[in-house]
């Protein structure tokens, strides 16, 4: 009887720990919403023909709902803030457990980063991934020196200091997170026109790191293994972080591997982007207007070049489209 009582007490202690583990974890529902994007995919239907992977340049610049309305494309953006290339690889690997799209679009901006940038960005991408081999690998590949696998396994060890900043958000979204995107597109209606841009600083070495090529090769191989057409893109941005030398390396890689590559900055006038009205942060990312224009253009490009199905009149997507239109109005 005593052993049973002790067992019961230990169970209660574990439950209390699990409660605090969840309570103190950031919910990313009303602030830092980028942290909730990766998990929203799990609630989606898994019948997409196009999957986007990459950093903010995909989730801010492409609207799957616009692409559906334009060409009947079912697509999803598995993007996240500062998504590093090894993170993109493992996210793609995880996605392929659920579905096999016809086209994977990878935004190559993260080729610039050869090592983990910050714990905060890691967290936004990894925190709400489902536990799997991919999650373990993404953590191992992404941890900064200060981080520890235990902090990911038991978020309480990392987030316990939040006890003095708990808010209603932590109660309201205790059980379920909040959906903040439309198929991974984070809507931003603000307008902040370009006024001045930083000057492009010359670099000592423009060659992408070996680790980035290794993961790009892995992405290429994974797509080939699943008979998926890989498309490399560089989203349009006026900030001078993407050098011509970078662009040449990607173009060369694409040619050598028989992959299509589009630097969409070169198509700005065809797309019709006006950086005095179509950006929310003075030229770094597109706003809703800009994303709508880019998505229309890209939907046409995809349909022209790849064998995609027109899913127009799909009841689920039609419903989503109405919700999307109501939201952006």
């Amino acid at each position, binding site marked *: 009887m*005593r052993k049973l*009582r*002790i067992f019961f*007490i*230990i169970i*209660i*202690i574990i439950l*209390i*720990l699990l409660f*605090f583990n969840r309570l*103190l974890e950031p919910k990313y529902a009303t602030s830092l919403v980028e942290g909730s994007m990766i998990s929203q995919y799990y609630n989606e239907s898994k019948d997409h023909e196009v999957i986007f992977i990459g950093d903010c340049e995909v989730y801010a610049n492409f609207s799957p709902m616009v692409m559906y309305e334009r060409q009947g494309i079912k697509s999803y953006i598995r993007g996240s803030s500062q998504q590093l290339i090894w993170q993109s690889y493992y996210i793609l690997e995880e996605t392929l457990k659920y579905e096999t799209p016809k086209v994977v679009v990878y935004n190559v901006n993260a080729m610039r980063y050869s090592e983990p940038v910050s*714990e905060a960005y890691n967290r936004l991408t990894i925190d709400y991934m489902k536990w799997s081999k991919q999650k373990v690998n993404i953590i191992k590949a992404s941890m900064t020196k*200060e*981080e520890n696998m235990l*902090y990911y396994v038991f978020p*309480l*060890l*990392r987030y*316990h*200091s939040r*006890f*003095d900043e708990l808010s209603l958000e932590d109660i309201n979204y205790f059980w379920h997170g909040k959906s903040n995107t439309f198929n991974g597109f984070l809507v931003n209606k603000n307008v902040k026109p370009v006024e001045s841009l930083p000057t492009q600083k010359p670099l000592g070495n423009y060659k992408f790191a070996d680790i980035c090529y290794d993961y790009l090769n892995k992405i290429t191989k994974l797509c080939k293994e699943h008979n998926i057409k890989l498309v490399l893109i560089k989203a349009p941005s006026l900030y001078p972080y993407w050098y011509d030398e970078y662009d040449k390396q990607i173009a060369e890689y694409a040619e050598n591997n028989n992959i299509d590559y589009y630097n969409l900055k070169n198509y700005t006038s065809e797309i019709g982007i006006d950086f005095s009205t179509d950006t929310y942060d003075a030229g770094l990312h597109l706003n809703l207007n800009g994303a709508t224009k880019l998505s229309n253009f890209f939907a046409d490009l995809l349909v022209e070049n790849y064998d995609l199905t027109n899913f127009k009149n799909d009841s689920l997507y039609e419903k989503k489209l109405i919700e999307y239109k109501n939201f952006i109005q």
Partner: protein
Amino acid sequence: MVINSLLLIISILIYASFGVQNLFFILFSIISAFFAGKYINNGKHKKCAFILTIFFNIFILVLFKMLPYTKASIIAPLGVSYYTLQIVSYLVDVYKGKYEPEKNFLNFALYIAYIPHLFIGPISRYENMKTCLFGKKKLTFENILNGLLRISFGLVKKFIIADRIAILIATLTNGDAKYVGAYALASMVFYAIEIYADFSGGIDIVLGISKMLGINLEENFDSPYFSESIKEFWRRWHISLSSWLKDYIYIPLGGNRKGTLRKNINLLITFTVSGLWHGVNYIVWGILNGIFVMFGDKWKTKYKTLNRLITFIIICFLWSFYICPNPVTAINMIISVFTHFNYADFGANILNLGLNLASFIVLAIFTCLLFIYDGNKSKLLPKILNAKPETKVALIGLLLICVLVLGIYGIGFNVNSFIYSNF
């Protein structure tokens, strides 16, 4: 025997992980003291062997105490302050014939190198350790629960109280000229709580680990902030050091047997050694404590609470010599309490010192609980120790949850090592 050998191997391995070169010093101390002990018991030149062994061991300790004040970048071996005193007490007792020297080298090595007490003490005596450390270990469920309970208490003190106050102390002692007057007083009071929670918390963990193994180490604290005089405080604070100083410095000097003047001189010498043991910077702190101990209990009133309050205030002022880099800064800090009446400013800025309101509330609650427990230890401790196992499990769980949720640790916090592990 197997468990002792295993304990020794684990102790040596952990010790080596802090720097293999440190092994040289501790092995020298163990080997020299073990064979000197045997020789002192039977040898012809026992006085010579006794003095030489003590000299070399003390020399190593003094050398490492002095090195931080030179340009040398050598770090003192872990626990040198603790195991050197153990070796001295062992050799003195063997020399005086108090007990036979240890015959088993492994047992003696374990007595010196037993890893839990090398971090933070207590300074264990051979006669006490002989029975509990060398004897048969009792790995019982009750010992494990009592050990875990003690460890949980220690973790609460360290991670919820001490390391939280450390954030305040870091702000209050950052050299900003505005932190005088009320801020200085606050830093002294906060530090008094921090060093107690930190040191006694560490000792709780050491005693708890030992208890789990069936080893009963001596208590090192007895509710020191409930003392009614500084003299009493030193009977209840760092008991193993105080009693060591009494037995191996104060009494051999003559203690109180040679008149008041000599007694006072002996006290001053003893407390100067105490200060020196903590480091050259702490000599003034040691002498001042000695002066207050000299006053004894004569000033005490008939009101216990008032005596305790006055003693606590004196202790707080004395801790300023611990916080400040030199005695002049400490004296200026104390003077500022009486010359800068910036209490309103302190009240308005208290939430800008590194802790927000919620964190202050947590600190206040757990500090109150600590003092309530200390004040009622004689009633509470037996109740806790005699509680049903399921009650103990629940208490351990509750304390660990508090540590995990409210503790100061992990990324974003500058985790402090135990203050007394530096000595």
